[in-house]
């Protein structure tokens, strides 16, 4: 009886304290499935930290929120840069009248105007050896004099930001010049990534080690102080410059209502609440209770979202919920360690590719939403053509057995048990069990090595593995970002964890990566993609699909792989929200 009374009093207290739902606030409620590790752009390495950083900070460029294929547009830069004939010197004009957020770091607490020196400072900060930024790889060995500056200050007590660097110079208050050591076709993409977002030196110096908790950017939203809580609330930047919603997009965007706000000043909402929710069930329930406006659907929730025809289930349609499904720019794979003598045998690698039952795997683990990878480059990027079909990704046990025999291991005889390193979570274990069964059918014994994420990364970076499984997501929309995973100089601890070295591949890759975007470069990328498919340095997996659910009242959401700055364009229709909320 007493326990019942206690439970009841708890409930009553909870009722008393619950907040009533209101529909007068123009706010967007989003979910971040991971904790945010602070707001320092130079360390915004994961997708979710990048998304949060992008709400308060900005870069020189950003990806167009509507146009596809992805297109860069100037953001803090006034226009695209003037590039010298040799493609090495870039002149950037900075937009005038852009103000930093108000902060105690500035004189009288009022944000000052962004100047060219801020661009120079922010890039130098990315290179500062004392900060050891996660994003340094982006400009490592790219700008003239920057690596030398970094090396010099790795032994000094204090990094000297006043020191001039030939490849990174302020020409006047609104002009910056950057000089590359060698052609870097992805350079402008680098300047659209969160790592190169612009910070104010005063804020960095004022807040010191606490800088990551006090974001002071130029972005559309303001966050006075970041705390590791369950919700981050951003409010509209009252001093945000005149920036407008784009008036053109991809074909069909108009019909989807994505151009309804064309020409309107952004941001279109007053507030963004980001709820940090790690587990699948509360994410799903919060969205279904209309507490959140957008949901990235993963794992167990896919079944609850779509039917066998990959269409949104009727019960969600009735509530006006929209389904957004788009292929991701990613690839999953099982990598062989090519330093292991057995994996130098191409026929063995090809046989293992043929024995992997991708169709069943896709049904079991991706609800048939993923696409079989014919090469490392995902569809949508130059380098992957619809015409090319990888002959080794079909499920053909007879052919696999034949190749295995030709490889010198008939029925798997003579092959040692192969250990595949993977993560220790439930789904990874189930996936590796499935893989084991596939290989067993041609006589290959697989053992699973399960690891925490740090253990797995360590084994791969120290080459302490025979095989491992991994997924790679694009940093920017260029096939180079995927093909580099098999470039010999990138071998462990770099991104080529397979330690694959193919001189022919390397020579073409080296040539392609210095070329600007062109049909010739695309042809080289295609060649590289096909070389990988035929040489089988990995067992290719899938290109997965991003699945989102959006409430009917959320406007202007379009799937975007690099969505750091997308949130400033979102809008809500309060009338629709008021009407439809009754259904939840």
């Amino acid at each position, binding site marked *: 009886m007493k326990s019942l009374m206690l439970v009841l009093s708890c409930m009553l207290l909870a009722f008393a304290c619950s907040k009533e739902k209101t529909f007068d606030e123009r706010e967007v409620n989003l979910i971040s499935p991971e904790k945010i590790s602070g707001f320092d752009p130079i360390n915004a390495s994961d997708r979710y930290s990048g998304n949060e950083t992008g709400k308060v900070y900005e870069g020189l460029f950003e990806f167009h929120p509507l146009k596809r294929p992805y297109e860069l547009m100037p953001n803090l830069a006034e226009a695209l840069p003037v590039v010298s004939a040799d493609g090495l010197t870039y002149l950037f004009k900075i937009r005038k009248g852009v103000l930093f957020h108000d902060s105690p770091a500035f004189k009288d607490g009022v944000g000052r105007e962004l100047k060219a020196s801020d661009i120079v400072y922010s890039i130098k900060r990315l290179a500062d050896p004392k900060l050891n930024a996660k994003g340094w790889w982006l400009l*490592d060995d790219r700008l003239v004099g920057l690596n030398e500056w970094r090396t010099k200050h790795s032994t000094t007590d204090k990094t000297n930001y006043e020191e001039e660097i030939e490849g990174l110079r302020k020409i006047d208050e609104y002009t910056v010049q950057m000089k590359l050591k060698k052609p870097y076709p992805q350079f402008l993409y680098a300047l659209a990534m969160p790592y190169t977002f612009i910070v104010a030196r005063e804020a960095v110096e004022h807040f010191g080690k606490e800088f990551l908790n006090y974001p002071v950017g130029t972005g559309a939203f303001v966050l006075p102080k970041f705390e590791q809580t369950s*919700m981050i609330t951003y409010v509209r930047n009252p001093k945000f410059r005149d920036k407008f919603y784009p008036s053109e997009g991809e074909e069909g965007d108009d019909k989807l209502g994505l151009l309804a706000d064309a020409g309107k000043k952004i941001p279109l909402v007053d507030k963004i609440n980001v*709820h940090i929710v790690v587990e699948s069930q509360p994410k799903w329930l919060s969205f279904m209770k209309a507490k959140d406006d957008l949901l990235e659907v993963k794992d167990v929730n896919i079944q609850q979202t779509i039917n066998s025809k990959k269409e949104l289930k009727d019960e969600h349609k009735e509530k006006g919920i929209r389904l957004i499904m788009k292929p991701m720019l990613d690839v999953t794979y099982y990598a062989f360690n090519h330093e292991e003598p057995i994996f130098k045998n191409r026929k063995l690698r090809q046989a293992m590719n043929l024995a992997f039952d991708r169709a069943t795997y896709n049904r079991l683990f991706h609800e048939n939403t993923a696409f079989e990878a014919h090469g490392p480059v995902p569809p949508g990027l130059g380098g992957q053509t619809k015409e090319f079909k990888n002959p080794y990704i079909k499920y053909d046990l007879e052919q696999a057995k034949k190749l295995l025999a030709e490889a010198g291991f008939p029925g798997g005889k003579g092959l040692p048990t192969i250990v595949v390193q993977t993560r220790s979570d439930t789904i990874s274990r189930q996936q590796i069990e499935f893989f084991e069964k596939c290989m067993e059918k041609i006589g290959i014994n697989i053992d699973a090595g399960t690891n925490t994420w740090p*253990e797995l990364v360590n084994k791969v970076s120290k080459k302490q593995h025979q095989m491992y499984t991994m997924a790679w997501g694009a940093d920017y929309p260029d096939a180079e970002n995927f093909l580099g995973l098999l470039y010999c100089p990138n071998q462990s601890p770099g991104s080529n964890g397979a330690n694959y070295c193919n001189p022919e591949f390397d020579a073409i890759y080296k040539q392609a990566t210095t070329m600007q975007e062109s049909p010739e470069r695309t042809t080289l990328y295609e060649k590289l993609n096909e070389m990988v498919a035929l040489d089988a340095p990995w067992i290719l997996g899938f290109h997965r699909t991003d699945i989102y659910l959006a409430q009917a009242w959320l406007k202007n959401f379009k799937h975007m792989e690099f969505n750091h700055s997308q949130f400033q364009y979102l809008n809500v229709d309060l009338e629709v929200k008021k009407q439809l909320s009754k259904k939840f």
Partner: protein
Amino acid sequence: MIKYIIRRLLYLIPVLLGVSFIIFVLFNLVSGDPTAVLLGKNATAKQMAELREQLGLNKPLLDQYFDVVKSAFTFNFGYSWATKQEISHMILQGAYPSLCLSVPAFVIATILSLIISLVVAFYRGKGIDLFVRIMCIAGVSVSALAYILFFQYFFAYKLGWFEISGFEYGFPDFIPFVALPAIIFILLSLGPDVRFFRTVILDEIYQDYVRTARAKGLSEVVILLKHVLRNALIPIITYVVIQIPSLILGALLLENFFSIPGLGGITLNALNSSDFPVIKAMAILSSVLYILLSLLTDVLYTFADPRVKLK
């Protein structure tokens, strides 16, 4: 007793030295290189070497051990490698939601369990005793995750009685967010607690002094509350106090499912990102807490049983 307490507090020194040594061996000698995880997917060998230098991983081992010892004795744990936040601030910030959830739930669960145990001890062998025993066994047989999933779905989503997830700082704002996880915590604790308390109380009930009390004509209620409970308190205190460190370290599953930004999540994140300073800080803190609470247990014994003298 004061001398005893001081002596026990002094024991902290060798224990902390031992804990520091174990932590040092685990994280500075045995564990792998954390730099690959800390630098992310594009780490280069050069950058990893630079970071190792910066994190002090290239220092002589004795110096590294001394750093661990220093942090154990000063409680200055420095900054997190992964989030770059000040660790003491992270812990303080995470301790508040963890305590908001676990302290009231723990107190209620303990009191409720004691009451239920006394009632079933009073009615031992009867229907209610059998019913409670069956419920306890059923309760501990179902996994905590099943309770969490069902209660969150049914009471928070379907009935809308509670918040689905989240947390707000300050009283009473946090109550709607911790009410449901606290109820689950209580239900999860009742099974093992009642079973243990019932056994301890029944052990006492068959002692000679209880028979004497009954022979003297004391009522069963007086016997239970005045004599049996007091004598059963020593194992109960041991059992209860020893659970306190785990309350402060957070109820990981509950915190994760209800998005409560407590210490459980901080520890898990640190493990997943090779954030050794945070893991070390949590290990040192739990050791200190454990020692202090075992001292508290000893002191409480003297109140529960006057025959116990601390020398």
